């Protein structure tokens, strides 16, 4: 149990997927304008990453390893991730059309969110078992959600600030992300 907790805290905060590993930056900048959509994106990513790390761990342990097909991991993982994203898209379109609309193109783009494939590959590299892998996936996605919601909060406040003309829009957001990364650096060394 303690070991799982260490994995979770490590993945969510210390090695935050966005702010210290720089994975999944596209939605981090793309959908962090409003807290609501950011949280929705975070929810979708949590769902996709948790499920995909579960499925990819299972496939790796019970399909690829016995068949000595470890080198096929990337292509199989991508297949699984793409299918899961497709499934999430269908699910959201049916049950939460408003969220589906506001996420827009970024929802199918979870497919190419490197954080998703990143987690699956990290699970393999650190040779986590299925449970550890799933916990790692969930915590990583939670870390993603934390940072994207924090970013959205900052950006909502930033709207009211008098930003110099050439820093308006993305330059300012990139600077903010850099400062956030430095702040998250404070967590390093905890584990």
């Amino acid at each position, binding site marked *: 149990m303690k070991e799982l907790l260490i994995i979770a805290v490590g993945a969510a905060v210390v090695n935050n997927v966005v702010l210290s590993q720089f994975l999944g930056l596209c939605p981090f900048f793309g959908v962090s304008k409003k807290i609501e959509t950011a949280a929705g994106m975070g929810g979708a990513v949590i769902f996709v990453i948790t499920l995909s790390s579960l499925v990819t761990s299972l*496939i790796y342990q019970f*399909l*690829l390893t016995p*068949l*000595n*097909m470890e080198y*096929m991991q990337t*292509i*199989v993982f991508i*297949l*699984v991730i793409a*299918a899961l994203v*497709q*499934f999430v898209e*269908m*699910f959201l*379109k*049916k*049950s939460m*059309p408003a969220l589906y609309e506001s996420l827009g193109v970024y929802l199918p783009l979870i497919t190419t969110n490197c954080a998703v494939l990143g987690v699956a590959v990290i699970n393999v590299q650190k040779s986590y078992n299925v449970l550890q892998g799933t916990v790692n996936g969930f915590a990583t996605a939670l870390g993603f959600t934390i940072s994207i919601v924090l970013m959205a909060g900052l950006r909502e406040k930033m709207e009211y600030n008098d930003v110099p003309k050439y820093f308006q829009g993305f330059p300012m957001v990139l600077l903010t992300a850099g400062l956030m990364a430095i702040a998250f650096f404070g967590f390093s060394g905890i584990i």
Partner: protein
Amino acid sequence: MITGIIIAAVLVGGVGLFIGLFLGVAGKKFEVEVNEKEIQVREELPGNNCGGCGYPGCDGLAAAIAKGEAPVNACPVGGSAAAAKIAAIMGQEAGEAVRMTAFVKCAGDCEKAGQSYDYTGVQDCKMAALMQNGGSKTCSYGCLGYGSCVKACGFDAIHIINGIAVVDKEKCKACGKCVAECPKKLIELIPYKQKQAVSCNSKDKGKAVMSACQVGCIGCKKCEKECPKNAITVVDNVAHIDSEKCVNCGICKKTCPRKIIL
């Protein structure tokens, strides 16, 4: 070796097959009914996804029309033909869609306007416009001729001819992409039928215009006085024709001492 390849192929194929089946079942289960009209409307739209209507592509416009949020003639590219068909689908009368065309308000080509310095930077209007005096052209309002509008046009309707952008009226679909692209705000949409337009955007006073360009509007207001319909107004030293009032009489063309009403 061969078995390895076969195992790999079967593995990926099997995973793919399983995923395909799973998605197929899920797709049936989570099917969302799409408005039938939306599909029909989408079929009538041109499908360039140019964004000229202000919606994200043709799918976006079709959804908005089907919901009644957008008028049936919202597509500037399809024109009245598409509008009529869409109106039939929606069970509405098609409003009269005036065919528009883009017009570049500058005639200062390489011979008529000079260069005040050599610009050798990135060959792009937006970049060049950030240089001193808003570009190397002697007239700081004129067309820079690096073709940002040409790159933006999805219909091959605008070209750089002798240093200035010229619109091919027949090919232009009035999607408005070039209007948004031009850093000098030189391009505007005018009715296709309007025969005269002022091909200058210089807000400088007469003497400065004279020294910068042979074909600049000096704001003499002759056209303003001569126009029988009071359709021309000179604001900030440049004449502008109100398309609603203009009756294509052509008096302004003859009056203009600089011959820049084309």
